[in-house]
């Protein structure tokens, strides 16, 4: 990708339009808030498909490598993915050993039929995140290395952990009591939002519930899972002294329930109320497949993700990933650099810092390879 992501809209958060949060369920350190939608129209369906590909040809000469256990298909189609040979290999004439191959997915989101679109969940968003200022310095300041000027940030990589590694998540998903018209969940690990997941139809949700384990999560949540055994359960409490009749007891339970619902709502509010920048990836009829990057500030939690939005604004599909602190820091540095045309002293000034301090920051963030070696040597 020669330039950064092109955002086409900025909103003040992700509105959960058309979704009602239900009471949270808690197991160990994991709290799950179900999201319900009454009467899903069913004109958009999402199916999982197993893929073996480790690479995606993004389409502009860039390749994206990751462990991708599955792809989603909006409506079902036949599988047909191309293969590429893996390095140069010598074979004796007549030998039947198959060449080592790696399957390649063509594009992150690809139309496979008139009414079917295949896309790789979460990796779509992650690829967008990695592509932020991927082109590298726009101006050839002399501090930057030749590689940085020629090929930008490539190769750029980030680490994430699979859901299976998060202690307690598997059990929490297993014992979670799915609602009849449930289409999504908000997963919290030690009360930090791990992921929001919404699909268009309750049947899709039933199928994809376990796939949350195969998705990847920020490193922070892995650590939280190990650190915290249990989160506080918000038990109902009734003041017995005020109750004299069964009717009063009923009212007390109802008001307790209301309070508790409000608490669940509170948890959903804070998280997606930050400035979010969107990019439309694909238009399919009245649906738009979009990816987004939330606010990137080292002091706040950062989320990236993707969504399918209906023309009337209804959220049909949503999947988010919580960036780890280091990932937010890296992206933040890149944004600030880009804002100041990659000029080091101007950027350092905006931080209220000296150039050497900024250089140390860059090196510590893993961007040392952008700078000429002799500049780093003196630090």
């Amino acid at each position: 990708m020669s330039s950064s992501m092109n955002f086409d809209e900025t909103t003040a958060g992700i509105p959960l339009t058309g979704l009602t949060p239900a009471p949270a369920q808690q197991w160990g350190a994991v709290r799950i808030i179900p999201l319900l939608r009454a009467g899903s129209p069913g004109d958009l369906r999402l199916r999982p498909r197993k893929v073996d590909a480790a690479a995606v040809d993004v389409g502009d000469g860039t390749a994206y490598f990751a462990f991708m256990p599955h792809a989603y298909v909006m409506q079902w189609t036949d599988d047909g993915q191309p293969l590429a040979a893996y390095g140069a290999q010598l074979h004796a004439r007549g030998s039947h050993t198959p060449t080592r191959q790696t399957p390649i997915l063509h594009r992150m989101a690809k139309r496979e039929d008139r009414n079917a679109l295949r896309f790789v969940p979460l990796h779509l968003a992650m690829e967008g995140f990695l592509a932020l200022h991927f082109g590298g310095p726009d101006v050839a300041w002399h501090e930057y290395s030749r590689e940085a000027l020629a090929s930008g940030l490539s190769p750029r990589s980030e680490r994430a952990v699979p859901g299976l590694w998060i202690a307690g998540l598997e059990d929490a998903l297993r014992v979670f009591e799915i609602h009849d018209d449930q289409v999504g969940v908000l997963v919290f690990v030690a009360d930090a939002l791990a992921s929001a997941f919404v699909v268009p139809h309750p049947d899709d949700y039933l199928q994809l519930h376990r796939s949350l384990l195969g998705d990847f999560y920020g490193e922070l949540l892995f650590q939280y899972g190990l650190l915290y055994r249990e989160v506080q359960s918000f038990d109902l409490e009734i003041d017995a002294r005020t109750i004299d009749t069964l009717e009063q007891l009923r009212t007390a339970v109802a008001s307790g329930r209301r309070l508790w619902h409000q608490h669940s709502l509170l948890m959903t509010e804070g998280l997606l109320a930050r400035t979010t920048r969107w990019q439309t990836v694909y238009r399919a009829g009245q649906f738009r497949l979009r990816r987004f990057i939330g606010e990137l500030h080292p002091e706040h939690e950062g989320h990236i993700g993707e969504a399918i939005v209906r023309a009337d604004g209804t959220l049909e599909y949503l999947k988010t990933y919580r960036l780890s602190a280091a990932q937010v820091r890296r992206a933040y540095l890149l944004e600030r650099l880009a804002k100041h045309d990659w000029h080091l002293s101007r950027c350092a000034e905006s931080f209220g810092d000296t150039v050497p301090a900024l250089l140390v920051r860059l090196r510590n963030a893993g961007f040392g390879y952008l700078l000429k070696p002799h500049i780093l040597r003196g630090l």
Partner: protein
Amino acid sequence: MAHEDLVVFLNACFACTGQREFYSDGHEQTVSIAFLHDYIRGNYRRLYARSLAAGLNHFNQGRIVLELLSHSKHLDPEDRREEGQLCRAALAALPPQRAYRVLLGLRERGVNNRRTRAIVREFLAQRPDLAFDALKYRSKLHGLVRHAHPKLQGELGPFLARGWHARRYATALLEQFRRAHFSADAVYDLPFTVAEGLAARHRIDRKQFLKRIGPRLTAAERLRLQSAASRVGLDLEIDLGRAPLTRVALYALSLPAEERQRRSEELHAALTRSARRCLAGAPLPLGRVACVLDRSYSTTGSRDKPRRPLAVALAVDTLLATAASEYQSFWTGGPLADPLLVTPRGQTDLATPLLAALETRPDLVVIISDGFDNDPPRGAGEVCRVFRARLDPERRTAIVHVNPVFDAPHLGPRPLDRSVPTVGLRDAEDLATVLAFARFADGGLSLAELEDYLAVRATELVRRHAPAEPPP
């Protein structure tokens, strides 16, 4: 303290089978129940032995016998005698395959003394047809004989040693078994479990085999094979009403929804008839009863116990409807037109149906739930607490929480609240026993009364299974 320990133990033994549950895996369950057995045996040996008569489930009865027999140093002769009698009675009452497995447990633990040999001898002496056992439980009996060396009558010794390699047997059943190894036709005179393996060896067609072995099937096998038979297009005749109540409920819930709807009348009749038979054995005279039944997603059970919590709820529903003079049921998640069509769905909201049940002012409210009340958390517990404290301090309405699930981390069925007794239950048929036991779980009765209760039941158990007096 002792009272509380014992109540926890007995409660656990009503529900736990060491199998995986919805909320905890099999290993946790095994560790948890093993600890309870060790602790109670070590501290309250006599009561531990007498709890054999408390109506615990088979798994735990077997475990108690095994524990008693493998730790018997420094016992008074009097206690030793009573324990011996209780073990003998319990082994005779257990299903044979379970009793054999308990005795084989002695071999695994390397326990072989005069006492265990006598127990084994007496157990084998009271078996109605040892030749049949030698056929059906061949490896078990063989293992037991090799461990304890009891004297065997007739051809049993050679049969266990040589099996079908012998030239011929004079005993008809044993000869049948030998012949079945050579002739496919002889297979059909053997017990089903033995014949099944031989049928595979002779490559007999499954449908053909099920059809011809039909008359030899026991009632439990017949019920178990219903779906297997219908898969090959065969109708195995069965009188569902004669099967145990929980089994019927499990069978009904295993059917797809359309079939349940189609056979609704027949299944209802079977459930009711089974409930009546169960009540004839253990009467349950109840007045006005309301029952709160959990059908949340967690009643799916586990791979080891599929749908059991839901089946227990359905069975108890039928049982109480038959037993009580006035009965009303309140399922979670709104009223049900036909309880037979129940499916495990959604979150657990016990508070709403419980409030509705209390509104009818019954004499007894039974709550069937695994105790995981999460909509809102502890909703039902708070309702119970406030109801007891403020609205019904004179206890006109009794509330009992019956829990079909053993929660390993808490060493017992998970309670709703301290104000309400929680008792474990594996089979709905044992409802009368656990309701009687609920008085102790409630904390209203003393240790002495619990001891008396167990002593009386122990004497009864021993009397029922006393060996027949030899003729003068």
